[in-house]
């Protein structure tokens, strides 16, 4: 899960229909054409046959903090790491289904507790050293080591116990779970396999956190490896000559010689660089910039990839204020904790206007947490009530609020103690979209007589207020799920979660409905079939819609662009939107003779 531009680490574990069968094998892409080295078992990728050579330039919004997957938590780092590392089983960002990666096949036992993975033959790290089951064992030992503090550790604790890993033979690894896990083999997505030959020593010395990605320190299994890093300017990656994927003609991927990330401080600068042709790809374009770029495209194409997995919402501070708080704070919390108050705000929010004004129509209004980009998990029967100020007023009246005419022709809302309803909404100052949403809601609520102020705040301090000091009234925020599976945002929905935004890290669920949410979420995690999980999750969505802890507003489309010379450009609605198939991207204008 990614909060706005924040770097909260995800629980990224997904279910799969294939799970239902209990057994998975058979690569989605059948056939193993003649690899050039007979000992290597290539993964063959369908798609246009490109030609080798050339360099692709992409802008990155700021410098990645690290290239070490064991400590990386920010989205920029993850974007780069994504093309330098590889996992055992991978979620195809386009189909949203799992496919074999370093493991050519896997098998899940009938009771759902034992996963047996078979490695591909002839795998080599980017420094030419071979990979075997010992590297995989080492990798999971490191991830599970509490002293390493790897963000991945959370994902590997199932039913309160760490997964145990054992080697069956040089190519076969067996994972043992203590409890069935709904997400199945999706668990392995994003878990980079580490080079034991380079990291064993630093690990013994407890220095893993200080390791960077220099070629003598690190080797990966991704399509690219580090070539040059110029602080503050760019990061140059070169092709990994030992990469394990090939196209249908048997050419080893990736096609590109180099992939260059240039560091650009903000969205507008990214747009300018793309417009002037300095960069080849652009993703996460705002709707306004998208229409600027689409107006006179010079040698590039802009694509609206459709609804993504980002949901934006307004939420109120539902934390227990404590007895020491000022009467003003206590009074506000009393309104916010009144479910009818939240329902009234939801009824008054003009979601259509948000889509039109903020996203220029390139988005979808939301009434629940599942965005239209998520095909499988939406609750089809959830109501989508149209905006109604009358309903909002009726709800407020039921909750004991009343209106009084103010001099100047305005009507103000007062609570049952005769105090005027005034509060502030926080937004991230760096996110123009959400500031705009807040301004629209401010005006919507003014029509109910609420006096609302919008307070733009730097994102770090905003997150600090929401999750640490809890000193705020309301906040407009957004979350980008990593995957369509509900477990991707589990920390938001569990009352004990650190990003249970409206009232984080509770020791006991504060309300009955939060307790039920907890139960539903826990149950769906170990439920064995999709139908079973879906049923539980549908109920969870209904509870959210009823209680409105988050007032869902809208979801933007994924807007991306590429130069016309970039081949195999197939943007996905999952992160990384344009680089997920980096190994297949090629440049059409590189002369054939130059290719190898």
């Amino acid at each position: 899960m990614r909060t706005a531009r924040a770097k909260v680490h995800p629980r990224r574990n997904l279910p799969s229909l294939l799970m239902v069968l209990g057994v998975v094998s058979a690569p989605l892409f059948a056939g193993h054409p003649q690899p050039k080295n007979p000992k290597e078992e290539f993964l063959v990728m369908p798609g246009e046959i490109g030609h080798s050579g050339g360099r692709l330039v992409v802008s990155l919004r700021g410098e990645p903090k690290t290239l070490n997957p064991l400590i990386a938590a920010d989205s920029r780092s993850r974007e780069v790491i994504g093309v330098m590392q590889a996992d055992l089983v991978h979620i195809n960002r386009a189909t949203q289904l799992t496919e074999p990666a370093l493991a050519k096949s896997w098998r899940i036992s009938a009771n759902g507790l034992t996963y047996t993975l078979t490695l591909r033959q002839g795998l080599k790290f980017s420094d030419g050293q071979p990979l075997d089951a010992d590297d995989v064992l080492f990798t999971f030992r490191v991830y599970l080591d509490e002293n390493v503090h790897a963000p991945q550790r959370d994902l590997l604790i199932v039913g309160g116990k760490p997964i145990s890993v054992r080697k069956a033979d040089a190519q076969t690894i067996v994972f043992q779970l203590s409890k069935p896990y709904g997400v199945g083999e999706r668990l392995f997505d994003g878990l980079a396999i580490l080079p034991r030959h380079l990291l064993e020593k630093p690990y013994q010395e407890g220095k893993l956190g200080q390791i960077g990605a220099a070629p003598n320190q690190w080797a990966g299994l991704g399509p690219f490896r580090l070539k040059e890093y110029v602080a503050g300017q760019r990061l140059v990656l070169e092709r990994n000559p030992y990469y394990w994927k090939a196209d249908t003609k048997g050419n080893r991927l990736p096609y590109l010689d180099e992939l260059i990330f240039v560091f650009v401080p903000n969205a507008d600068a990214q747009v300018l660089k793309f417009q002037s042709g300095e960069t080849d790809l652009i993703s996460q374009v705002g709707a306004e910039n998208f229409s600027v770029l689409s107006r006179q495209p010079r040698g590039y194409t802009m694509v609206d990839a459709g609804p993504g997995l980002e949901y934006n919402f307004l939420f109120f501070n539902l934390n227990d204020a404590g007895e020491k708080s000022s009467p003003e704070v206590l009074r506000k919390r009393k309104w916010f904790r009144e479910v009818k108050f939240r329902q009234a705000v939801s009824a008054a929010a003009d979601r259509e206007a948000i889509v039109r004004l903020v996203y220029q129509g390139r988005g979808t209004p939301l009434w629940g947490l599942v965005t239209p980009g998520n095909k499988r998990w939406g609750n089809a029967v959830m109501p989508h009530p149209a905006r109604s100020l009358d309903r909002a007023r009726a709800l407020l009246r039921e909750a004991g609020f009343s209106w009084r005419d103010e001099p100047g022709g305005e009507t103000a809302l007062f609570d049952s103690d005769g105090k005027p309803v005034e509060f502030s909404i926080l937004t991230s100052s760096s996110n123009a979209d959400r500031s705009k949403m807040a301004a629209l809601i401010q005006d919507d609520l003014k029509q109910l007589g609420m006096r609302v102020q919008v307070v733009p705040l730097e994102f770090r301090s905003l997150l600090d207020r929401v999750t640490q000091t809890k000193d705020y009234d309301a906040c407009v925020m957004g979350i980008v799920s990593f995957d369509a599976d509900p477990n991707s945002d589990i920390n938001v929905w569990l009352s004990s979660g650190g990003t249970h935004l409206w009232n984080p890290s509770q020791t006991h669920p504060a309300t009955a409905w939060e307790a039920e949410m907890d139960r539903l979420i826990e149950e769906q995690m170990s439920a064995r079939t999709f139908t079973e999980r879906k049923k539980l999750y549908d109920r969870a969505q209904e509870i959210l819609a009823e209680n409105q802890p988050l007032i869902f507003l809208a979801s933007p489309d994924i807007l991306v662009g590429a130069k016309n010379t970039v081949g195999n450009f197939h943007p996905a609605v999952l992160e990384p939107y344009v680089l997920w198939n980096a190994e297949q991207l090629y440049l059409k204008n590189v002369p054939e003779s130059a290719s190898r």
Partner: protein
Amino acid sequence: MTRRVLTRWLIVLLGLHGLVVCAGFFSPYNPAEQDRNHVYLPPQLLHLVDPTGHLHFRPFVYPWKLRPDTPDLREEDTAHPLPLRFFVNGAHYRLLGVFPARLHLFGGEDTRICLLGTDAYGRDQFSRFLYGGQISLLAGFLGAALTLLLGTLVGSVAGYFGGLIDDALMRFAELFLALPWLYLLFALRAFLPLAVSPLKAFFLIIGVIGAVGWARPGRLIRGVVLSAKERDFVRAARGFGATDRYLLWNHVLPETRGVILTQAAILIPQFVLAEMTLSFLGLGVPEPVPSWGNLLSNLQQYSVLVSYWWMYLPALLMVPFFLGYLGLASSLQERTETYMIERRSLGGVT
């Protein structure tokens, strides 16, 4: 001659400020009112001649319609002219902040007429410009008044008494000159509660402007006082036994009048700019209250910059205000100088 120029500048400024002070009357709409169906509408030009060449005495505008087969380009819909109505009743406002009223100079019949176009929320830019001027100019006025008051106080005390007091006050003033006031404001804002009401934010701005702005005029006034207290008539008065207070109030301070007026004419636009800078950075009065800085902060976004040229118009319209103040300042200075020369030559005769 200078007097006539001075009067001319004064009339120009009075006219401009009249527009802003009576913003409620001159602007057709409430500046915070959103029209979500008409966002980023280009300005509507006032027409007197229709496409057939007929002259109309009642000005009219054309509504905007989307050009066929374009997503966001607009053209004037000449088939449906919208005549301007004068002295219409519309949004409630308070004239001069006191008298409730509904009368507006002009307005449309049922469609809104936006002479400067609309912004991202469909708010009328013309109304926002006039109302925004109220905040920005008032900040300039009050800021200048506060700094001049403080400056005169400190400057005259320092200049008149001299010695240790002078040294101490002037070093103190230098300290204030050296203060990075923008960061000071950032720091100050961090101590305040999260949501600051527009009124509080406004007085905060003025407070900050006053607190950091007094040093320069203070030094200037000290100089004038320093030379004034050595004048023959001041010495004479002292010889007759006048008290310090009497001398300061009746003989020394009147000498600073010219400088203070000139300084005021220079400081007001400077502080208007200061307010604009703060609002531009989001430290000024919070939206949706308009101020000139808030209006300009729309231009921070690249897409607005290249797509909606009329968002620059408020900046253009601010130019006459600043020009007016500069003209006033220079003719005031000229007047002070001639006055000084006259005084000096007169002094020689007596």
